[in-house]
């Protein structure tokens, strides 16, 4: 199964099969254990995704089950991605094939790291997250239609509303999620800010 191209430009919607990883407070040490961080490039990270859980579950982990190979929408529960700031976590998910994450709630740094890769983290109610996970389990081959722009996810005839803060929403839909050039472009504003910070100007002494 080949991995789809990494996100580029606007991300108004995504269509793909779902894979559910159930549980609250799944931390980034579990998404990618520290030993996989010994690298100077992100290239080989897919093999580390959920490595310890997958080994422990010996083939039964959702990321190993045949029916979820090729899935691109990860559905989780509460506080997903807590703990370490390692961008290796969303990088590993992305390199495995994930292009959108839907769940009850996300840790902030993880959310921001996903956004910087063009991967939306979309929220929905606690019960709705569970219902969506159940729907995926019932028919893993069904495609989810993740409407980032319209903030809803559809599966078959069912659909659920999604939440995403206005800023990230606009960044994803407009394609401005990869914001380095935007930050760099504010050169005069950057200079003006630096000029008014006393610790950069010797405290006026």
């Amino acid at each position, binding site marked *: 199964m080949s991995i789809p191209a990494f996100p580029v430009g606007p991300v108004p919607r995504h269509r793909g099969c779902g894979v559910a990883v159930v*549980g*609250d*407070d799944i*931390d980034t*040490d*579990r998404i990618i*254990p*520290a*030993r996989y*961080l*010994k*690298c*100077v*490039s*992100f290239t080989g990270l897919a093999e580390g995704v959920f490595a*310890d859980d997958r*080994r*422990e579950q010996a083939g039964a982990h959702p990321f190993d089950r045949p029916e979820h190979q090729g899935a691109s929408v990860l559905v989780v529960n509460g*506080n997903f991605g*807590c*703990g*370490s*700031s*390692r*961008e290796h976590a*969303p*990088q590993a998910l992305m390199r495995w094939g994930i292009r959108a994450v839907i769940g009850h*709630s996300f840790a*902030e*740094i993880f959310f*921001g*790291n996903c956004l*910087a*890769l063009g991967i939306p983290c979309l929220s929905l109610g606690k019960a709705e997250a569970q219902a969506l996970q159940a729907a995926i389990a019932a028919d893993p081959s069904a495609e989810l239609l993740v409407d980032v722009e319209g903030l809803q996810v559809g599966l078959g005839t069912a659909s659920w509303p999604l939440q995403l*803060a*206005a*800023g*990230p929403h*606009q*960044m994803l839909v*407009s394609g*401005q999620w*990869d*914001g*380095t050039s*935007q*930050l*760099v472009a*504010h050169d005069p*504003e*950057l200079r003006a*800010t*630096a000029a008014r*910070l*006393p*610790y950069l100007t*010797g*405290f*006026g*002494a």
Partner: protein
Amino acid sequence: MSAGTLFDKVWELHRVADLPGGSTQLFIGLHLIHEVTSPQAFAALSDLGLTVRHPERTVATVDHIVPTTSQARPFADPLAEEMLATLEANCAAHGILLHGLGSGRQGIVHVIAPELGLTQPGMTVACGDSHTSTHGAFGAIAFGIGTSQVRDVLASQSLAMTKLKVRRIWVEGELQNGVYAKDLILHIIRTLGVKGGVGYAHEFAGPTIEALTMEERMTLCNMAIEGGARVGYVNPDSTTFAYLQGRPHAPSGAAWDQAVAWWSALASDPDASFDDEVRFDAAVIAPTVTWGITPGQGIGVDETVPTLEQTPPDERPLAEEAYRYMDLAPGSPIAGLPVDVCFIGSCTNGRLSDLREAAAVARGRQVAPGLRAFVVPGSEQVAAEAEAEGLDAVFRAAGFEWRQPGCSMCLAMNPDRLEGRQISASSSNRNFKGRQGSASGRTLLMSPAMVAAAAVTGQVTDVRPLIS
């Protein structure tokens, strides 16, 4: 300046521009980098054809992958060697100051920046590491970022950020003897939950906080992130200024007085309003130990592992997973639980005062037979000061290993790790499954003094009677 919180004032001062969609471009006053989360950022920077905008505002060190036994180069682990060599090459190419091994200033990034006076009140501080919240102890707004954001800071000395709400955590009452800042923050996280702080900056305030030393404030702010708050801070005061004065990067001469005046004005005003407030009484807190697989699963050392009935329905699946993973029975006491490994160190508790507290317990006692105990100072400077006081000798005489500085078994990217299902008493900050290097290894978080107590008794032990 109108009534406001320190968070609001610092935010406004550093606001570069408003970005589409409501986020803010925020100037970053101090950028700290290390070998794990920076190489890909430098690579991305050159892919974009950009350079480092303010190389003088970025400072580097090496901490996560360094061995703590022999730090001779090249490292035995070629991957670790490659990571350090890459950091060295990137810093050299871009004119970034690197506090490397043997410089006298190397150490865990969150230990060295404060001790060098780099971290100052009113700054914005960013680092590709979630425990950057530590620097909030100085009244800085400091937060962890991912590698793409490290690239952004290198390129523009700024970040796109969404403003946080501010919750004041007001603490009154005196901590008992044998109860430390670590116990206070474990207690707060246990009470508010690991996601209680999501969306908030936590301002720690009140008489108890004002009485804390800078090192204690750092321990507290360090673990703000474990309670979900990306930012934790304490208003700057005379304790802050006394700590900073005379440090290598602190202002001096006429600038010092100006700096103190500016810093003082940044503290939250008495009538500042907060989005939320919670209150704690420090006097009731016992030495606190985690029993489970998140930092929120903590209990007093005199308590028992909560039963499912004592656990809110929401948290029961996690509790059940924790019973199984930790092999602990609901309702069983935590005191008396045998441990295999004792680790004193990390950016939470690897500073001089932490080593002093632990040494006071270890002095004249012996590490229990069959148990491995080791002390990893947070920095070369901490190591030198501890050695000057003879703390290394105290630890060695008691049967502890005295190691060289680094992150070590906090996350086990170096050779220091748990084996199999070993259980550790650790002064670090995360007890996640597999955190300390073994996929089935188990971690009990506690204060350094409590780790020392566990080391000399071979089991989880209330430290209070040992120091009376």
